[in-house]
Structures are given as C-alpha cells and as structure tokens.
C-alpha cells in the first residue's frame, strides 16, 4: 500500500521533474553546457527526429560549437509519469533549429524523454522524437 509519505515524495519528485524538463529546454536554446552537464545522464541516448544519434558528449558539443543551434523551442507537455526512479515525459514541441551546415528549419515534433532519479536529482537518459504530420519540415 502506498503511504502518505511516498505520495508526498512522488509529488515533490514530479514537480522537480517538470522543472528539470523546462530547464533542459532552456539550456538547449542557450547552449548552456554547464546546466546540461548536470541535467543529462552520462548514458544519454539522444535520437533526433531525423534519426541522428547523439551521446551526452556529442550532444553538448554540437550545441557549444554551433553545429546544432536551437533558435527557439516551445514545448507542450502531454503527460508526466513516474515509475519509481524512472520518469517518463511525453509531449510536443515547436522547434526552430539551424546550424553551421544548414538553414533554419521549423519543426513540429512529438517526443518522449526518459529521466532517471540519480544522486538526488533527475537526469535525462533517453530522448526519442518524431516529426508530427503537420511539421513544416517533414
């Protein structure tokens, strides 16, 4: 049976998870390596909507070097669920991204990201995204 204490713990963790998600989107736009270093799990698997793959190191490097430049990123969270030490967020995002080798692209994506509760904080360990049917760039 779930105790009041565990309900309270889940409530605190859920609020922390939502905050971490918002901070992560902001840090991506700001190419803030320090914040991302704290929020991303060392075992991160980041699968972009075009099928590109990044590790934690390659993802942060791509932002810092400008290879991938998130000009804006507006997310709408559809669901937040917590299974013990695993958090699952599902949502949609309108993203404008450019980079050294490409013109700005407007994308509308559906995404799922997985967070792990480690060392007393949430860390994102996996991201999968798909282009929505109405995405300006398919």
């Amino acid at each position: 049976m779930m105790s009041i204490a565990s309900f309270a713990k889940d409530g605190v963790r859920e609020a922390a998870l939502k905050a971490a998600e918002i901070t992560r989107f902001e840090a991506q736009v700001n190419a803030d390596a320090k914040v991302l270093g704290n929020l991303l799990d060392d075992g991160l698997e980041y699968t972009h909507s075009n099928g590109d793959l990044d590790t934690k190191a390659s993802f942060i490097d791509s932002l810092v070097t400008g290879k991938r430049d998130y000009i804006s990123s507006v997310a709408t969270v559809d669901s937040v669920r917590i299974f013990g030490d695993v958090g699952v967020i599902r949502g949609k995002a309108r993203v404008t991204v450019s980079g050294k080798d490409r013109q700005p692209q407007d994308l509308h994506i559906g995404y799922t990201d997985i967070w792990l509760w480690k060392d007393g904080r949430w860390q994102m360990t996996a991201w999968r995204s798909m282009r929505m049917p109405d995405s300006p760039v398919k």
Partner: protein
Amino acid sequence: MSHPRFLLLLLASLPLIALASPRGDEDSARAALQARFDAALHADVAALDKLLADDLEYCGVSATCSTKAQYLESVRSGTRKFRSLVPKVERVTLFADSAVLTGKVYAVSIGDGTERNVDAYFLVVLAWRDDRWQMTNQSSTLLQPKPKT
C-alpha cells in the same frame, strides 16, 4: 517477545519474503519485450492484453500516440499488421519496479495490400506489476535512411 528476538526472527525471514516476491530481472525484461513483439507479429490480442499495461502510451513513428484500448483495436481490426518484426535490444537499465530498454526494430508492415519496411529506434518502459513486466510506454523514431551510393 523481546525486541532483539523479534528482530532476529524478522532478519531470518527476509530471504523467505524475497523468495515469495520475485522481482523482474534483465532476462525477464528482455523476454517480456520479445513476447510483446511476437504477440504483435501474430496479432495475439489476448497475449498483448497481458503484456501491455492499462496505462500504456504507444507512440509510433508517425508521431501519433495510442492508448492500450486503441492499440489493441488496431491489432484486432488488422489496421496494424506485420509480415516480420525483429527487435534488437541494445541497452537495458533496470530499477526496482521498472526497466528501460532501447534498441532497434526491423519491421515489415502490411497496409492497404502493400508491404513497407519500417525500421526504427525504440524506447520502451516496462513496469513490474502483478508479478510480471507490463509495457507502459513505447516511443519510436525512424532510422536515418542510408545514404544513396
């Protein structure tokens, strides 16, 4: 009963308690995922009903997400049909009551009389409930097409 004796009895019974409540391990998580893909391939709705959690969120490569009821109906009606479905698990991360599995799935889907290769990265979350693994989320992204040579 004195406290020390009670504590000793409690400690002695811990292994029995553990045996009475088997938890999911990596092998059983992999087996549950394989069983779920096999059941999808054979359109086995009864098996899927047991393997999928009631709060399933299933997000396919088209970016549309389905509930368990919607997913089962698509299998039952034949909207979701496969000629082959071959998963390759690349990572399993295990927790007390959940497991995260990632990898690739190589699929041939059948729709409107035509077959289509749908190869994708998958992300699956299993929850340990009622003494078995149940899939609560699957999200997929199409594999990057191979460069033309």
